[in-house]
């Protein structure tokens, strides 16, 4: 059987079955029967014998795990009902009490479908390797934590014994008739070292293999992606290759290319991501893995020009250094100081201005707004990159963040842009559902049901400074959420419909006040959504009216925090993602003293040297 065809066919079959049958009905037997019929059909034509006769390159026959002893299953049950049941549910159907407010959803174990594997597409995972590593390292980018250091190694193996025997209901590792194990020999395969050629070849292959149809031309997960669904009908989105720390299979080792090679070789079961083992050589798989790995954000922002990777781009990608990953969060380390540097003359007109390279870009971590109603449990934006430059009169901010959808509100809304209490207009928090499927008629308002069906609002970004922050006794600040009574904040808000406005906030539930005079002074330099990323550049005067607008002064720590809305996620008003407080610091141009004093010291040292030498010479003369 032609591997490529079977892969696509399998996938299509899955999607078709999904529409007509419930996942519970859709099980291994359906799949097995289908494979069998294919085998018979093609076998009858004399083209091939069985479906697994030809193993894809890089795979070898694996061994079947022994059934766990009953005591181990019982011990695992104790672990499961203490730690796991809360999200994965009593029957392991991924429908625990926490499930509906999670995205990605917790795994439904029943069908034996597991995403991260060394085994060939459609096969059960290796318990000791794949599932053990998942429990040990967690699944970054989801709520599944790393259980290392919390559960002992034995406890982790125990719980797997319970899950694989009791909760995987439709298939069995012991089923010798249907279950085979063809294992990717990841440790034996010689990797292709990353190089300019390899990265360039990878960038061509992702187009040839049509990866970019879902993952987007720059790999930000913005392709034909919004309506993708998994086997249970839940909304699912292609990985953003620029955030390797969120790769579910990253195993707490984000920049390790082997993880990408593995996922690409074995596919992500239960999702539209197929295995490419049958139609891609091992070498080509390494080229793709190298390219994808080097797209992950590093110390410099390399413009990959829509994926048309030239020698120059590949060299820059190769030269960039990985970012430090915080071992406590498995995300890039956060620095709470946002530096701004002085530039002469006009501030940059776009993102290509060379002067942006003068200043470090900072990652601002974003979390869902879950303090006040309506809380946002499922966010699609988890970070924003910020850079800032200033001149004598103005300061410029460049915000860039990955957003799979360009959301511009089309239908008119009943509220005004300055209003924040939108409950009266029907913008309400969603009650937790508790469903195994997205389209459960019993839970029509669940997050899972609504996730791709919200009214589309504007994407947006805002940042706030305390007004008259100079007068606040440190560390007092206005509240992070639009200030509080007596502690007003200066809010600058941009929305994707082209508005850039200055507001004053005095509390999370207080409508904004327009600051029209200052709005006139704001300048939207650029706002563009391209290939899954927003680039928004705004400038504002350093100073306005002292009583109303935050004065931005040199060399001071000015509290700032950020808000971001994803219109396709139904984000509007208080439903958004929010950051902690950061500090904006305008680094003053280097003062003359910085050069003068060291020079004086150096000259002094030269004089001392001369004195010592002269004295020595005189003494020797005297002696002679």
């Amino acid at each position, binding site marked *: 059987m032609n591997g490529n065809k079977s892969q696509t066919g399998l996938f299509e079959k899955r999607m078709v079955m999904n529409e007509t049958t419930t996942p519970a009905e859709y099980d291994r037997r359906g799949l097995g029967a289908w494979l069998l019929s294919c085998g018979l059909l093609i076998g009858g034509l004399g083209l091939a014998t069985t479906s697994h006769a030809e193993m894809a390159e890089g795979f070898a026959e694996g061994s079947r795990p022994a059934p766990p002893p009953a005591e181990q299953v019982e011990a695992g049950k104790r672990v499961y009902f203490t730690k796991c049941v809360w999200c994965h549910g009593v029957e392991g159907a991924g429908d625990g009490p926490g499930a509906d407010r999670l995205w990605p959803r917790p795994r439904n174990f029943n069908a034996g479908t597991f995403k991260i594997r060394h085994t060939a597409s459609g096969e059960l995972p290796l318990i000791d390797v794949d599932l053990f590593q998942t429990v040990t390292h967690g699944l970054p980018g989801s709520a599944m934590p790393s259980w290392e250091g919390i559960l002992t190694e034995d406890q982790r193996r125990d719980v797997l014994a319970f899950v694989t025997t009791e909760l995987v209901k439709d298939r069995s590792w012991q089923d010798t008739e249907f279950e085979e194990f063809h294992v990717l020999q990841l440790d034996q395969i010689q990797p292709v070292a990353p190089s300019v050629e390899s990265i360039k070849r990878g960038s061509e292959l992702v187009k040839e293999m049509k990866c970019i149809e879902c993952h987007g031309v720059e790999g930000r997960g913005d392709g034909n992606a919004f309506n993708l669904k998994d086997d249970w009908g839940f909304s699912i989105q292609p990985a953003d290759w620029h955030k390797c720390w969120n790769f579910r299979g990253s195993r707490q080792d984000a920049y390790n290319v082997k993880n990408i090679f593995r996922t690409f070789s074995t596919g992500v079961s239960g999702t539209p991501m197929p295995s490419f083992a049958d139609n891609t050589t091992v070498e080509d798989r390494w080229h793709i893995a190298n390219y994808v790995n080097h797209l992950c954000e590093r110390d410099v922002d390399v413009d990959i020009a829509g994926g048309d990777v030239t020698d120059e781009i590949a060299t820059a990608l190769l030269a960039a250094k990985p970012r430090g990953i915080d071992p406590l969060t498995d995300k890039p380390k956060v620095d709470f100081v946002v530096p701004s540097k002085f530039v002469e003359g006009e501030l940059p007109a776009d993102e290509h201005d060379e002067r942006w390279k003068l200043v470090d870009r900072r990652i601002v971590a974003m979390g869902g707004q879950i303090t006040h109603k309506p809380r946002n449990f499922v966010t699609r934006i988890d970070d924003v990159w910020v850079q800032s430059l200033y001149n004598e009169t103005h300061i410029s901010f460049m915000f860039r963040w990955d957003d799979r959808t360009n959301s511009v509100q089309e239908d008119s809304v009943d509220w005004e842009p300055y209003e924040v209490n939108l409950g009266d207009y029907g913008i309400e928090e969603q009650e937790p559902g508790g469903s195994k499927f997205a389209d459960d008629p019993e839970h029509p308002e669940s997050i899972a049901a609504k996730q791709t069906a919200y009214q589309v609002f504007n994407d947006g970004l805002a940042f706030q400074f305390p007004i008259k922050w100079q007068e606040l006794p*440190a560390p007092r600040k206005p509240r*992070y959420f639009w200030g509080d009574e007596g502690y007003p904040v200066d809010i600058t808000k941009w929305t994707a419909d082209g508005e850039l406005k200055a507001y004053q906030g005095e509390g999370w539930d207080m409508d904004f006040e327009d600051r029209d005079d200052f709005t006139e002074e704001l300048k939207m330099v650029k706002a563009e959504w391209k290939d899954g990323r927003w680039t928004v550049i705004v400038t504002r005067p350093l100073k306005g009216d002292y009583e109303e607008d935050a004065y931005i002064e040199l060399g001071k720590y000015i509290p700032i925090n950020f808000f971001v809305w994803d219109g396709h996620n139904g984000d509007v008003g208080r439903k958004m993602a929010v950051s902690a407080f950061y500090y904006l610091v305008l680094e003053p141009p280097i003062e003359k003293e910085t050069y003068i004093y060291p020079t004086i010291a150096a000259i002094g040292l030269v004089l001392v040297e001369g004195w010592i030498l002269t004295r020595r010479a005189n003494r020797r003369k005297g002696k002679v």
Partner: protein
Amino acid sequence: MTWLKLVEGYMPMQMITELAICILVFSIINYSLKRAGMGLPKFWAGIFVWCFVNLFYLKYRIYPPIPFSVRAIYGTVAACGIFMWVSGSQQEWEEFKRPIINVLDAKTGLTKFVRTALLILLPIGLWGFAYNSFLPSFDEPIELRTVHPAPPATTKVHGKTYVLQTAANPFRINPEGKYDQAYSNAHIVSQDMGRLMKDVKNPEDNPWDPNAKGYIKHVREGGEIFFQNCHFCHGDNLNGRGLWAFAFNPIPANFTDAGTIAQLQETFVFWRVAKGGIGLPGEGFPWASVMPPWEQHLTVDEIWKVIMFEYWHTGYYPRTWE
């Protein structure tokens, strides 16, 4: 170079022993070389000892690292000691300073070269060092926040006033329906690694047992609330490492740490949960905390249940007033 670091706790004794051994080994080598007629020059030996102690041992071997200022003091003391050692007699002192004098006099090609190089490099080095220390640096300012500020005497939640001294969790009950902390303490998770429920087959220990009732059933209800509301920050294992913990500052409390709920009365936790970050006094930085005032989202009963779940799941007891 983690293998180099001293284990915390053994440090002082281990350090003294190790240094003593080093000195002994060095003395033996030095003495044997001397006997063999290849004695180390005093000048280089002095520099070697100082570098070993100050630049290597104190900097890399000691853990946690000691601050630069303390190392500078040790370095000075070590330098004084070395001076005393090398100036023990007039002859030794002459021997020690000979290389310095040689360079100053610069009679050979090599010493001439060294002297010229030093004359040029020293001022340049000094300039660079001074320039670096004059450059302004903008590190994150340190702000000290009180994690457990003093609670008020009473708190009003959903229209009812609770006196923190006398309020009690209405769900912490024994099978007879009476408030009973000894009973609930007997059914929290075990204290060993993993903190698992004591007996999965016992409906008094397993919140998910179909026959669970009373205290342990309320624990499950609390857990359901926790996993719909709290784990986003406080984490699936209540260790403060939730999905969004990385985004927020102050970071979410780690309930498995012996310094959080294990140190607090249940009514204190009730006040903190009900009023959230915004309800903190100034020293707790109410402006920065994203902890919701849970009275906006949960009923009083739900708050009590979720607190009970937190104690159950971490295996801690609330502190009592006794």
